């Protein structure tokens, strides 16, 4: 049972990491356009679609 002392926090921490990742993805708008995201992976990157303003 001593293993639990280490394993349970580790399992929880990993799960929390996943949850935080999900919340970050949601906040950064990755769930806004699910149809588009599915099509986007097929695009060839022939040119830059985004240029940062200098």
């Amino acid at each position, binding site marked *: 049972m001593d293993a639990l002392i280490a394993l349970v926090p580790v399992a929880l921490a990993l*799960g929390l990491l996943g949850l935080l990742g999900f919340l970050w993805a949601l906040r950064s708008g990755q769930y806004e356009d699910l*149809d*588009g995201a599915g099509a986007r992976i097929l695009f060839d990157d022939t*040119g830059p679609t985004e240029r940062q*303003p200098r």
Partner: protein
Amino acid sequence: MSVIGRIAIPTAACAHCGGTVAADARYCCAGCEAAHGLVEGLGLDAFYRRRSAADGALRPDAAPPVPLAAAAVAEAPGLWRLDLMVSGLRCGACVWLVEQALAAEPDMLAARAALTTRRLTLRWRGERERAEDFATLLDRLGFRAVPFTPACLRAAEDAETRSLTRALGIAAFGAMNVMLVSVAVWVGDDMGTETRGFMHWLAALIGLPTIALAGLPFYRSALAALRARRTNMDVAISLGVLATAAMSLSEAWRNGPFTWFDGATTLLALLLAGRLLDRTARGRAGRAVAELLALQDGMVRRLMPDGRAEDVPAGTVRPGERILLAAGERLRLDAVLEDAPGLFDLAATTGESLPQPVAPGAAVMAGAVNMGAPAVLRVTAAAAEGSLAATARLLEQAAAARGRFVTLADKAARLYVPTVLVVAAGTFLGWWLGAGLGWQAALVPAVAALIVTCPCGLAIAVPAVQVVTVGALFRRGVLVTSPTALERLAGIDHVVLDKTGTLTCGRPCLLPGDWTPEDLSAAAGLARGSRHPLARALLAACPEAPLRRDAVEHPGQGMAAGAARLGSARFCGVAAKGDTPVLWFTDGSSEPVAFRFADALRPDARAAVEALRSLGLAVEMLSGDAPATVARVAAELGIEAWEGGAIPEAKRARIAELRAAGRHPLMVGDGINDAGALALAHAAVAAPGAQDLAQVAADLALRGEALLALPEAIRAARRAQALARQNIAFSLAYNLVAVPAAVAGLVTPLGAAAVMASSSIAVILNALRAERPGRWMR
């Protein structure tokens, strides 16, 4: 079109849009030819290899591009941002094409299109007026772009969906981790009590924050209902979840055999998943309606005192200012006609199917379409005070009245909440006082009864059916926007139909005449260069006519190419009079021929009326058109109850009369004159191509051209209602077994989980039966 049909017809596909064209042609129209040239010129012809939109869907719209520069927002000096709604953005390849084509512009910083919301966000450095160049580019590619309206924004940026998704993420995380601990307790018979206590507190550590955070959407709704002294399903859910949390905490405290955090968190996760699906299905319909509305939301061309014209939003035009209305354009403000007499299509405001001549100085209501030459009008009321705004205010009042509709789920909850409270309280008192158990131990069977009565099956019972039905209807072109629309549609017993635009196409259609097919083809080729409503109607009768490149438009008169002429009687040198809309055509040598037009019945109008009757509904027709015309249409469709010359107030009065008589009328309409009656009816459907106000007033909107979708939607709604009833009955029957077991203290958390999951699955499987292909599908 089916695959077989495509093989059988010996035609080629248009190189741009993939629509069918005559065997020797490469393009179906000039717009496609230009778009194809542009795409190849930009080196983006990979688009055609990956395109997956339906054939013909990319054909450029003939409508004029909307001015966009005014909608651009300055983010910083010289840095502009513009949000557009792009109609025609149908597949991933379209997104790619639009983004690549715009990114090729040297001053473009970012061009990003979203397929779900049809939203295109542009950011560029330099001149504001560059927006017009981008608009022209999109237009030439065959995409119609309009500013992203507040309604679009509401539909796209849905804060509630995002908070539901977040809650679902948290609930799923919590449920899975609590389950990890709970399963250990369930199977760990040899576990020491100390370890078990540790497990209980671990479950509480995960479960309590999860219940607090993920349950918020339910608690909020429950509180709102309780404040209004009502109960709804969310009250039952909140009660069950919170009582379970409290009981589990007490069990952890006294180190009892089980905690029930797993049940509470899993329940939340399941319910949130159902609610999110429900919202997504309706959100898609809402976005489609917002898209239809945005396409109608245009600019007004204001005439400045110095004679210049500029495009401004309708809301900024003040009374007394003069505006220019192009041929075929819809008037957005109340105005009086100046200078020359004009011809206006008043179908949307009065229901008259024939264009009406309007004398100079006469008033024209917002919603009229200019059927004659470009006209100058003087605005009499600002947008906020005009007739459209008055109708919109009327709709708001009616919407509030409709919000009081009590749904089936609410009715079930009204019975369920008090009953379950009495059962739980009785169980607690029975075990505590009657059987002499400690209060903490007595709490367990009481709360088990609460959670096992399973608001889960009950709460999923109705949404599951709705999700499946709304999704199935969406694919068939019926947009369901109101959450209670299906239930109200299922309850109707009387149908009131508008004529113009609902039973008829609402636009001129070519009548048979003494012209030859060659005349038609030649005339349609001339008509291709014009946006006049009659020219477009002529083209619709002969869509494959080749473009006459040398055609020149003489505004208000007609088209000329060489010696050939198409236009008004005087333009073609004919002295003719008549009250039906007519285009004359001469190729220069032959005698002029007349193409006459009239508003024709939709091809499936008769079948739709018969289908409505076969559903046991009384059908009646209410129209603002001349009684003689209405009588003819009524006879043709076999409708006995009809009324002509009905002004908007008369339509509303008729609906109110039906409601007072205890009937549940369904109103089907398309015009601004129908909006009041639509809002007042028990349920309301906007006909295909309806005006924006009519769409807002209705619960369902028909997209596409098929009126037969209406009886199918009613059938689907009735079926959905029957299935929802079955599901609720099933959940209640389940409880007849589960509740006595829980009251007797026989149910363990494992048993509760099994009951909850199995009843939910049964209810969902039953709901899937709601999807059945409708009969109007080919």
